[in-house]
């Protein structure tokens, strides 16, 4: 089938020299990274290619050019058009992987995972699917699942190593929460936010003191109101705050790893 397409394309180019020249022009613009003009010329090629021999190819190239320009919505739209005109399962699956990559970049985890699941039956390289699942979770800062799928894929050892190091450095949101629940401010200390921890501790000691004093002096209503309206609000806020700090720190760590991989990793990237 692939050979037949190549023959049809060669025949089209030989009998429609204008179309052939137009393809060369568009390809050269794409190769020189002039993506805006490349899109225009691929669209012109598509418009005058009455035989529709290059329909899938031009749509795919337009999609790639839009992706380079960070127009992800448009890129997805053209990859989908390319799928409609694709002639082999292999081509269709590869184009679907391109759409998965766009979902990954856009942090659309559910869409990426669902498309990868739908490829399970037809995609021949199963470990590739796990590889892209790993990227999907990594872009969502879910290092645990990311590590699991990269491990399963067995094709990204350096990423696995980096993720294992990262997992050791990560803060536990549960520890942060429990620490702050036992002693207000300690969860913040655990995540390295000393000032915030001291402020939390101060407020809780002050308001707790007022509440306890009110109860001991048998001013029950005042005690209940201060406890419920003021002290408990600060106490709950302190626990939530500690958890947020841990999560934020973990996101920062994962983000640094992600940036590092995007700049230095030699394998396929979204």
């Amino acid at each position, binding site marked *: 089938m692939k050979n037949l397409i190549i023959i049809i394309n060669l*025949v089209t180019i*030989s*009998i*429609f*020299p*204008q179309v052939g020249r*137009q393809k060369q022009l568009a390809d050269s613009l794409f190769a020189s990274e002039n993506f805006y003009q490349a*899109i*225009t010329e691929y*669209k*012109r090629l598509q*418009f*005058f290619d009455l035989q529709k021999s290059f329909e899938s190819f031009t749509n795919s190239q337009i999609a790639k050019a839009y992706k380079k320009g960070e127009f992800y919505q448009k890129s997805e739209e053209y990859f989908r058009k390319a799928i409609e005109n694709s002639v082999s399962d292999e081509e269709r699956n590869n184009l679907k992987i391109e759409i998965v990559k766009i979902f990954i970049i856009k942090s659309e985890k559910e869409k990426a995972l669902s498309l990868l699941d739908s490829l399970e039956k037809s995609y021949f390289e199963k470990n590739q699917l796990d590889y892209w699942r790993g990227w999907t979770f990594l872009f969502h800062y879910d290092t645990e699942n990311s590590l699991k799928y990269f491990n399963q894929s067995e094709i990204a050892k350096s990423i696995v190593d980096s993720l294992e190091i990262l997992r050791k450095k990560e803060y536990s949101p549960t520890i942060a929460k429990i620490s702050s629940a036992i002693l207000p401010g300690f969860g913040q200390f655990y995540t390295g936010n000393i000032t915030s921890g001291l402020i939390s501790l101060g407020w809780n000691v002050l308001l707790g003191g007022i509440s306890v004093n009110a109860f001991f002096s048998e001013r029950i209503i*005042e005690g209940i*109101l201060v406890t419920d*309206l003021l002290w408990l609000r600060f106490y709950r806020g302190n626990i939530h705050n500690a958890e947020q700090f841990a999560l934020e720190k973990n996101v920062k760590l994962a983000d640094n790893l992600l940036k590092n991989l995007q700049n230095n990793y030699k394998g396929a990237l979204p």
Partner: protein
Amino acid sequence: MKYFLKFLFVFAILSEFSFSQTNLFDYENRLKFAKNLFQEEDYIRSFDEFIELSKISSNDSLKLWAAISLRKMERFTESEIYLETLFGFSNLEDEAKTEFFQLKFLIEKADEFQKNYENKEIHPEKYRLELLRLKYFSHLFLDGKLPDSTSFINSFQQENQPEIAKLYNERKSRIEKNSQRAAIYSALAPGLGKIYTENYSDAITSFIFTSIFYGLSTYNLSNDSVWKGIIFAGIGAYFHASSIYGSAVAAQHFNAQQKFEYELRLKKYAETYNSFLPNFEPK
């Protein structure tokens, strides 16, 4: 294979004959392509193509279409510049002027549109009635007095009149909340201003919180706990002040929300009828 090659040879000769004259970059082909880009809503590229074509031909339609492409991309100022080049010297002057008014209307400055409308010199002769409709419609976006209902509604085509009458009456009967009044209400009784602005749950919260802290303050002051009385009075005053300020803001928010929803419907309606103006888009 032999027959296939023969067929290929004959086809190539015929194709060479029919395509030897085809140049994808000649005027006709480029125009077709530009129009196709416009239909596909790729306005940035259709604009480029219309501009390149206008370098080859002095056809004023190209400038008009370039301006429309810019308008579609919401690049209104640039669009206006292209339209103004067609004023006074072009056979598409009326079309350009009509487009110009549509731009003024779309920039969401109904007052600016009306100011421009006062300048009769730039009225498009051919589309005077359509422009008058748009002028009437622009009144619905403004806060001032509305024109007389009969002339307002009758200026529109019969099919539009029921909906226009509905929009007109809604605009006329719109009641706005006064932010000063809301603040005064909340100063008199915490939360009362929020009832006036129809934020009932906020009103209850404001009333409860302010009353509790004022109550605690009174209780402590009457039991000789002066410093605690002052702290609770401060907290109560904070909630009271928040209620006053919040009520004033809520009144403004109420008005803005009401206006926003109404204008959204107006815009949607205007879009359905292409702002009541003729369509000069490339076909």
